[in-house]
């Protein structure tokens, strides 16, 4: 069975290779090759899943050692895979949702002449993400980690002819690189601390604690913080969140893939996977929770102000990942719920994005919600699936989001003390804001009057339902959005499944679960009501009003991009420009100056050679005198 693990990665990787190298002759069938291979990977995942289910809870870790990758004296990195409950969960999510998005893309990208290449990149994305979650050591994980970065770069910048897309892709990669730096420092720290960075020895298992337990707290904190930096980059957490909004430049299926199944979930995976390290460092955990809490509010606030449907959803993703990170920072109380929310979020966020893509598909790629309105009549299926996703994300009781988010809020309170209150409060507030901005999206898109206008060429959009290949994935995902939460929570199935890997502890919450649920639901109603008051009862202006200070700030992503621009981009430009100058004038100048001064000296000495024999004689006479004097002087000394 272990030997199948590599196949999980190999299938999409093969797809990527074939599609990218194959060239134009595969244009006709390329999308099918990509989809089939993604689905094949899913099928292998299902086979492995049933195999795992057939084993006892302690026996559910499979490893596959392929070959020794980098063998150097004292340093050993292998290409080896580990499939346990945690990675299995991710495998199913990635391949499952991924395959659906492939299917969706067939229709969505139908008119793009580079569709084959798009599928190649999608397959590459899946392969990298699978490598990330299946790697048995941090270095191999790092390969997947950066592979995801590359694939996202290629996909975000897929429409390269648009400068904005190319810039967004570059930005995503660069911000991710900053995070990657954290990961590589973390690996180096592990190497110097433990002598290895393989999961087995470092993390150990529930029964046999790994080396992580032997290290000093300071080292563990350092490693954990560096891992957090990495997670911030991939999962778009403050302060490395800026790329996510711009990443909407990519085709919509890409956004769905990045936000639901891959990429942004990687950070959460990393933290949960490294539980043994984080558990050893309460300080680092505190930082993780703070980052999570700040991000969940940040994302939510940004989401409230965006008129671009995809950017609004992007803010929402940031916010939801914030929940997960917050949960992961809580330690054993929250790990399982972080992952559970991740999975449910995978369903409904994928559904929402595909829905948004479907809307755009029908609206000539218009993304401004102010130019939508009343679309429910034109796109019933999209409306239905989008609504279910909407209900799930705001945490409508009984749907997926309700179960997972509630648990996280509970766990936050269970952290105890002031911290617990603050974190729990933030989480609650976030829930209310989520309800507000998602309702806003719903209302602006599907309700009210139609607001679309002819574009500059005079083409008026003719909203229509999307083709079957696009709606089927949306329907499937809607099912997931509705039922996944309940399926996982009833009987603590998900908890029992993951617990052997992540461990679990019950917190000591100051609020009863019932109280939390009630408060959450109440806040949800408040959020929806506020949104309805503003966007449901009044017509939505086509041109955005100036808005309050907060609105304007939120529209500009709370000015953090401007900050980056001024401090990093401008500062960097000045630095490089001055360095170019320094290199030319100073470093080169010193050498050239030396050469010039030797040349100058030459010119001056040369004038001594004035052509007059008598002055030559003087030189000789003087030389002779000097010679005599020096010789005598030597004796005298």
């Amino acid at each position, binding site marked *: 069975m272990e030997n199948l693990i590599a196949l999980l990665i190999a299938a999409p990787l093969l797809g990527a290779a074939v599609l990218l190298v194959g060239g134009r002759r595969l244009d006709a069938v390329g999308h099918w090759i990509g989809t089939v291979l993604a689905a094949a990977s899913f099928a292998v995942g299902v086979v492995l899943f049933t195999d795992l289910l057939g084993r006892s809870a302690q026996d559910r870790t499979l490893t596959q050692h392929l070959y020794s990758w980098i063998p150097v004296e004292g340093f050993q990195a292998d290409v080896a895979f580990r499939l346990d409950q945690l990675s299995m969960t991710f495998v199913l999510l990635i391949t499952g949702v991924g395959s659906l998005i492939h299917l969706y893309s067939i229709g969505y990208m139908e008119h793009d002449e580079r569709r084959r290449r798009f599928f190649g990149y999608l397959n590459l994305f899946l392969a990298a993400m699978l490598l990330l979650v299946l790697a048995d050591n941090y270095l191999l994980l790092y390969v997947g980690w950066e592979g995801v970065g590359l694939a996202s770069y290629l996909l975000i910048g897929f429409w390269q002819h648009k400068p904005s897309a190319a810039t967004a892709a570059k930005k995503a990669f660069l911000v991710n690189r900053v995070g990657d730096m954290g990961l590589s420092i973390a690996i180096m720290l592990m190497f110097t601390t433990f002598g290895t960075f393989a999961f087995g020895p470092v993390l150990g298992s529930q029964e046999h604690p790994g080396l992580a337990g032997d290290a000093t707290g300071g080292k563990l904190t350092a490693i954990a913080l560096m891992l957090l930096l990495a997670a911030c980059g991939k999962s778009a957490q403050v302060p490395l969140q800026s790329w996510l909004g711009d990443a909407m430049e990519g085709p919509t299926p890409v956004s769905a893939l990045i936000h639901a199944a891959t990429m942004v979930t990687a950070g959460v995976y990393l933290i949960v996977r490294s539980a043994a390290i984080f558990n050893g460092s309460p300080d680092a955990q505190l930082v993780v929770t703070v980052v999570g809490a700040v991000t969940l509010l940040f994302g939510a606030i940004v989401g409230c102000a965006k008129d671009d449907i995809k950017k609004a959803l992007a803010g929402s993703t940031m916010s939801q990942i914030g929940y997960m990170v917050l949960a992961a920072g809580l330690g054993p109380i929250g790990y399982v719920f972080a992952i559970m929310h991740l999975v449910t979020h995978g369903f409904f966020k994928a559904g929402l994005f595909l829905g948004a893509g479907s809307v755009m598909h029908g609206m000539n790629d218009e993304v401004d919600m102010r130019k939508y309105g009343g679309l429910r009549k034109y796109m019933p299926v999209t409306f239905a699936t989008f609504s279910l996703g909407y209900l799930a994300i705001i945490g409508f009781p009984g749907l997926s989001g309700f179960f997972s988010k509630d648990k996280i809020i509970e766990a936050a309170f269970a952290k105890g003390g002031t911290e617990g209150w603050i974190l729990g409060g933030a989480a609650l507030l976030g829930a209310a804001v989520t309800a507000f901005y998602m309702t806003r999206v719903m209302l602006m898109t599907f309700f009210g009057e139609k607001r679309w206008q002819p574009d500059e060429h005079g083409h008026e959009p003719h909203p229509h339902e999307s083709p079957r290949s696009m709606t089927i994935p949306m329907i499937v995902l809607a099912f997931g959005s509705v039922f996944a939460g309940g399926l996982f929570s009833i009987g603590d199935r998900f908890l029992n499944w993951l617990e052997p890997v992540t461990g679990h502890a019950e917190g000591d919450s100051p609020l009863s679960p019932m109280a939390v649920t009630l408060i959450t639901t109440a806040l949800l109603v408040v959020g929806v009501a506020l949104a309805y008051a503003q966007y449901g009862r009044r017509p939505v202006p086509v041109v955005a009003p100036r808005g309050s200070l907060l609105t304007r700030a939120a529209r500009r992503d709370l000015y953090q991009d401007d900050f980056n621009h001024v401090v990093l981009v401008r500062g960097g430009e000045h630095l490089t420009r001055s360095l170019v100058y320094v290199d030319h004038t100073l470093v080169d100048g010193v050498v050239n100056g030396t050469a010039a001064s030797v040349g100058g000296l*030459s010119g001056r000495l040369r004038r001594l*050679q004035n052509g007059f024999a008598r002055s030559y*004689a003087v*030189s*000789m006479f003087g030389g*002779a005198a*000097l010679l*005599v004097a020096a*010789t005598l002087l030597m004796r005298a000394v």
Partner: protein
Amino acid sequence: MSATAVHSLWTTAATAAGPISKIETPKIEYGQLSPTLIVVGAAIIGVLVEAFVPRKSRYYAQLFVSAVALVAAFAAVIALAAGGYGTTKAHIAAMGAIAVDGPSLFLQGTILLTALVGLFTFAERRLDPQAHGNRVDSFAAQAASVPGSDSEKAAVKAGFTTTEVFPLLLFAVSGMLVFPSANDLLTLFVALEVFSLPLYLLCALARRKRLMSQEAAVKYFLLGAFASAFTLFGIALLYGYAGSMSYATIAQVVDGRVTSVDPALAGTMGNDALLLVGVALLAMGLLFKVGAVPFHMWTPDVYQGAPTPVTGFMAAATKVAAFGALLRLLYVVLPGLRWDWRPVMWGVAIITMLGGAIVAITQTDIKRLLAYSSIAHAGFILAGVIATTPDGVSSVLFYLGAYSFVTIGAFAVVTLVRDAGGEATHLSKWAGLGRRSPLVAAVFAVFLLAFAGIPLTSGFAGKFAVFRAAAEGGAAPLVVVGVISSAIAAFFYIRVIVLMFFSEPKPEGPTVAVPSPLTMTAIAVGVAVTLVLGVAPQYFLDLASQAGVFVR
């Protein structure tokens, strides 16, 4: 280490000549002096040829006589060396006047070969366009006629050539042969004059640019005579100090092995002031000949003005002879005094290396550039001279051998590049030569790289040998200065290469004349020696090392 012990490092014991009380019948070892005698004899024959052979045949006769003489003399040197006179049988011949030992034979051999190659360039008659149907060489038709005068035109029309250059060359060579092997100060002085005077004349004999040629001769002559006077005064002082002209005796007095016989002479004999001033003045004369700073100022002007074949010969052979004499003086006569002269020579070597290299950077005439380059090289050789070790001697010998062939080859190439006014020596005219005549440019580049001391050329092997000897002799700072000035020097060699290969050729640029086999041979020998000594120097290093022991 005692003075005696140090002394014995590079000298073999020979019977010290006793004080001469009366004039003995001279005992001359003709066989051992044969190289010199052959050349002198040929030179005299050359004079007779001038007198008795019809003008038309003189050129061939002279060329024949000279070539045969040089080859025969070289054969004699080889025979002597094979006979062990360079090593085991090394001794002092001709009543103490001439040393026949390794360095003598090595340097004589080098000078003779250089002279032979130089002779080929002297005899070249295809470069200049034919004048009135007569083939002409680089020398004036009639030196005595005023430039541009009717008499000169008549001489040119008559097809006169100055075939006297051949005997002059031979006379100069004979002086040079004696110079490094002179074993007393009188012989040294006479040899100095014997090789200098013909060179003064040769400098004045250029066919083209005669004013410059004459100016070069005047400068060379006046400054040379001036330097000779200093040399002679130095000799006088040394004689006053030691009471003898013989190297061996002076060395003994310097070492303190001869105590003054006559108390009355205590004031003069062994007076260190006489010794030191004498040594300084004598050294100055020799440093003038090698072109060391600050006695170098004649070099660029003379090198530029003299007919190029003469420049090449002079640059190569004079340096060999003069350094040979300097070596013998410092190693045989003055080892006991080395704590006095070494620091001074350090200074001279340093300013020579740096001065030559620095001033060369801004030169615009190829011949002047090579002149300054030769000054810098004199500095490098001085660094080896200063080593005062057996390796020092052999490294200098090797360097001289390597250097002389590069030099003569380089100047031979200079003779090829011509425009309407004769040789085009201004650097700007060399632009793009590599495109027009890749072969000539490549050959010249090889010589330049050898000058620059790039590995796989003889220049590198020589430089390495000299610097190594200096470092071993405790002169590490000299090596560092040498390396720095090598770097500076590299700049102008490279500048010429850039000019030749990477610059756009000028439309009115010079042409490269097709030489006769004579010059071709000269250049080919230069290239061959440069490469062989660069890639496989072992044999010649061995030779130099075997030859590195002075007799005393």
